[in-house]
Structures are given as structure tokens and as C-alpha cells.
């Protein structure tokens, strides 16, 4: 980092001036970062701290009261529901991750290596991002006429003679939940992978071919290792979004399935804030552990 401060110092001749300018650039740095720091302190750090505190509080049917008790956690860890819901959350995250990685990699590969003109690359890429700008909830609702008992999918399959009776598992099932997740979040995988693919020096691929590597060998030994940062960043996005979700699961499962997010939002709607907070803290720890593991594979700060 050749920073401004050092270049300032080299142009100023007298020592006292250099010191004051060094001090003021540091002050300026803090002032510039202050708004971000204040927003994050007030709306991220304090709220999470508050959740941590409230997770030890007690609740009556109508209100919550300050206390220091482990009841909420004890209840959570003793309930078999907690474990099955967490398991379900991991299941959704894992399957969505695998699907979005396969699709995202293939789409990014096509755009980065098969489309040769930059204009077409940008154009097709934008075409993929447009649906991302419309409301998540609308995109979820839009699956309903598609997957319902009398929906397009069922009537098409029946008219083609593939099935005799409408498939019931298309909507309000694990299938529809995961389908919606893949629909909503695959873009978060495409973008970082596409970004790392675009940075790969094309002469490396030529070198691999000149050395007699087959297409698969080039893919496996050159392209995939070089895409690892993109894959990791995409993974972090998809996994955390799926693990924290509560609305997709509620919608697409017709309230029949649960994940941790729904557990929290159910407690909230019953005004059981302490119990919601305890679940939230456990979810937070889980997410942070998953990210800590993922970050061992990549240094995000270096990849930006």
C-alpha cells in the first residue's frame, strides 16, 4: 500500500510540517470511516448485544422481564424439535449450495470462456441479473401457478403422458423450498465465480493445452483451483442467506416445514422475545462457525 500519507511526507521538507500532516491524514481517515462505524455500531453491534442480553431474560405471556437465567437455552437444548429444525436448516443449505454451485459454475463458465466478445458477455450477464432486481416475495409467489396441483408443470406432464395424476410434491414441499432458494440465490454464486474466471490469464489455458492436457484436465487442474476464491465467496453468500431465511421456507412449504429462521419468527409472533433471542444467538454462532471454516480456504481481503 503506497499510501497518501507517505507521499505527502516525501514532498514536505520540514519535519514539523510532516508530523502535522501525518496527524491530520490519520484524523481524516477516522472521520471518513466514522459514519460507517457509527451505523454499524448502532444498528449491528448494539442490536446483537441486546439479543445476547435478552436471551437470558424471562417472559410472561404478555411481556418480557430482565433476568439472568439459562431457561431459554436449557429449553432449546432439551427439545428434540431444536435438533430436527437445525438438521433441516443444514439440509436446505447443503442441497441449495450444491445446486447453485453446479448451475453457477456452468453459467459463469459459459459466459467467461465461450462468449468471446466483451459486449455479449456484459449483455448476457445483465440478462441474468435483471430478475434479481425484482421483489423476492413476488418471485416466490410466481412459482405457485407453476407448481400447483393444477399448475403449468402438472398439466404439461399430464398432457405429455409422463404422469397420470398430478404430482403433489411439486408445491409445499422440500422440493419447492429448495427450488425457490436456487431461483433466488444462484446469482450470488454466478457473480463471484464469473469474476474470478474473468481474471484467469488466458495464456495459462493455452499452456495447459500445449502441454497436452485434455479439456477435463484443464478444468480440474487449472480453472477450478483458480476459481476457488469466487466459489468460496459465493458459498458464504448462499449458505448464510439460506440459513438465515424464514420467509421462503414459510411460503414455499405452505408452513409445513421449519428451519431455524422460522423458529425465531414464530417466537417473535408469539412475543416470546427471550426465547427467540436464544435461538437467534445459537443461529448466529452456527453461521459464524460455518464462515470461519470457509474463510480458512480463502483470504477475502486479498480477493477484492
Amino acid at each position, binding site marked *: 500500500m503506497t499510501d*497518501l500519507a507517505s507521499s505527502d511526507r516525501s514532498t514536505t521538507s520540514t519535519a514539523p510540517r510532516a508530523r502535522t500532516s501525518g496527524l491530520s491524514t490519520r484524523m481524516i481517515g477516522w472521520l471518513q*470511516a466514522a459514519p460507517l462505524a457509527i451505523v454499524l455500531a448502532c*444498528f449491528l453491534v448494539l442490536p446483537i448485544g441486546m439479543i445476547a442480553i435478552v436471551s437470558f431474560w424471562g417472559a410472561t405471556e404478555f411481556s418480557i422481564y430482565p433476568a439472568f437465567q439459562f431457561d431459554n437455552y436449557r429449553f432449546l437444548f432439551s427439545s428434540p424439535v431444536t435438533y430436527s429444525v437445525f438438521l433441516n436448516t443444514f439440509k436446505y443449505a447443503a442441497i441449495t449450495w450444491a445446486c447453485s454451485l453446479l448451475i453457477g459454475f456452468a453459467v459463469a463458465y459459459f459466459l467467461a470462456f465461450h462468449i468471446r466478445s466483451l459486449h455479449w458477455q456484459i449483455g448476457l450477464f445483465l440478462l441474468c441479473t435483471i430478475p434479481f432486481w425484482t421483489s423476492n416475495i413476488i418471485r416466490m409467489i*410466481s412459482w*405457485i401457478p407453476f407448481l400447483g396441483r*393444477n399448475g403449468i408443470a402438472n398439466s404439461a406432464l399430464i398432457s405429455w403422458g409422463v404422469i397420470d395424476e398430478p404430482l403433489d410434491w411439486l408445491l409445499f414441499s422440500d422440493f419447492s423450498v429448495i427450488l425457490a432458494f436456487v*431461483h433466488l440465490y444462484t446469482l450470488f454464486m454466478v457473480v463471484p465465480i464469473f469474476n474470478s474466471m474473468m481474471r484467469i490469464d488466458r495464456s495459462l489455458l493455452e499452456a495447459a493445452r500445449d502441454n497436452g492436457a485434455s479439456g477435463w484436465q484443464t478444468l480440474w487442474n487449472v480453472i477450478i483451483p483458480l476459481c476457488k476464491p469466487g466459489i468460496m465467496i459465493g458459498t458464504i453468500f448462499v449458505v448464510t442467506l439460506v440459513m438465515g431465511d*424464514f420467509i421462503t421456507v414459510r411460503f414455499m412449504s405452505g408452513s409445513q416445514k421449519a428451519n431455524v429462521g422460522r423458529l425465531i419468527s414464530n417466537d417473535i409472533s408469539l412475543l416470546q422475545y427471550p426465547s427467540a433471542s436464544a435461538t437467534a444467538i445459537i443461529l448466529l454462532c452456527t453461521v459464524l462457525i460455518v464462515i470461519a471454516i470457509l474463510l480458512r480456504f480463502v483470504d477475502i481481503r486479498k480477493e477484492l
Partner: protein
Amino acid sequence: MEPRPRSFYILGAFFVVFLLFLYGPIMTIGILSFQGPQGGLTFPMNGVSLHWFRDLHQEQAVGDIWGSFGRSFTLGLMVMVTTVVVSVLAGMAFRKRFAGSGVLFYLTIASLVIPSILVSLGVGLIFNQLGLKVHWSTSGFGSQLTWTLPFGLLIMFAVFNRFDKSYEEAARDQGASAWQTFAHVVLPMIAPSLIGVALFGFTLSYDEFARTLLTAGSYNTLPLEIYGMTTNVTTPVIFALGTLTTLFSLGIIAVFFLTVWVIQKRRSKQASDAGSGLV
């Protein structure tokens, strides 16, 4: 040009299927929103009409769509401006090392990956305990910033990492003050990316649901309104609303891209090389 390998056609077909997967459902509700007055939520179409769009203008049984649209739009603009200003400032700060920059960086990343419902719950609890009233323009605004600022800052990182510092040095060598260097050299060069930050800020805010759920107070934003409608509206009026909001989002994107295009056109007309190192 050498012949396309077979993988080109396979992946090309895959890409088309992917686009169908992305656009298909949205197009379906686009078509279904033109159902006749007797039409339902699924095919077959029962006549073709603008009935459900007209119905949107009428007083709704639940809530108030146009009020919530106005609030979402205002909030989106507030978040957009704040995101651009704060991200540029923070982006500038991160170009130099300052005490605490590492902590602030990881906090920003944390802000991106911490489940939205936690932010919503925490902010709601704090306002509640402090005896403050949650409102979309205060608690809702702050909660949404925890989502838009990290994106803004990441874009600024990408911008400044590809930024040629010799332009600034040249400006300083010619006697420009720090402010002049920023206003006349740095800002014009990063302007197209700032439009990207603005687009992100606005649309992320405009669609944000989870972080606004417990922080918007008694006046709903549009996503909350739509969420409410999904639980008790069983007519294609909701598809009409979906179609309109989708068209609105597309309009916003078009406006942003048009702005970028105009800026670039004007720039090339003036034959200035500012920013050519960027794009």
C-alpha cells in the same frame, strides 16, 4: 475462427434453460395478471382484461398499497443517498491504513452475513427497551443500511483497487488541495461506479423485507404490504401488483443505465481521458 467445441452447444443450451428458469415464473404471473374479472390464480385464462390493474387503484380491503409504495420509494432514496455518501467516505478511508481498519472491515463483512432477522429482532428490541417508537424512517432506515453499506463498500474496494493513483499525484503536483483533487479528479473518475452503488442501495432497500419486518412500525413498506397480501388475498390482484412492481424495478434499472450511458457519451464528446483507466 475455429469451430465451436461441443461443450459450447451443451453449455449454451444449459444457459438458455437457466434463463427460462429465471424468467419463466415471472412471465407466468405477468400473463396471469391480465385475467378476466372471473379469472383465478392459475391457468386457464378466464378472459383477458385490465380488471385487476384497475382493482389495484381501488381501496383495498387490506392496507394501502399506494401509501406503502410511497414510503418504500422515499426510504429507497434515503438509503440510496446515504449509502453512496457513506461508502465513498469509507472507501477513501480504507485506501490508507488506520487504527481499527481491520475491525471495521470484519464488522462490515459480518453485517453482510449475519442473518437479516437478527438485525430486525435486535433493533426492534433496542427501540422497544429505550421506549422509542419503531418507524420505517428511523429504525427501518438504520436496519436497511446494515445491508446496503457492505455492498457499497465492497464496490468501492473494487473501484479503488483498480484506481490509478498517478492522476491524484499529478493533481497534487500541480498544486491542487486535497479537496480539489477529490472533487475534480477522483470523483469524476469514480462517478460511473457510484451510479452502480446508488442502484444497489435503492433496489436493495426497495425490496428489503426481513430487516424491515420488526423495524418498520405501524406503517408498512411495500414488501411488507405484499407479504401481508399473500396471506389473505386470493385474487389475481396480487399478480397485477407483482407485474407492476417488476415493471417499476425494470424502469429504475433503465434510468440508471441511461444515466451511465449519457455520462459516458458526454465524456467521450469532451474527449477527456478521465475515467478511461476505469472502465
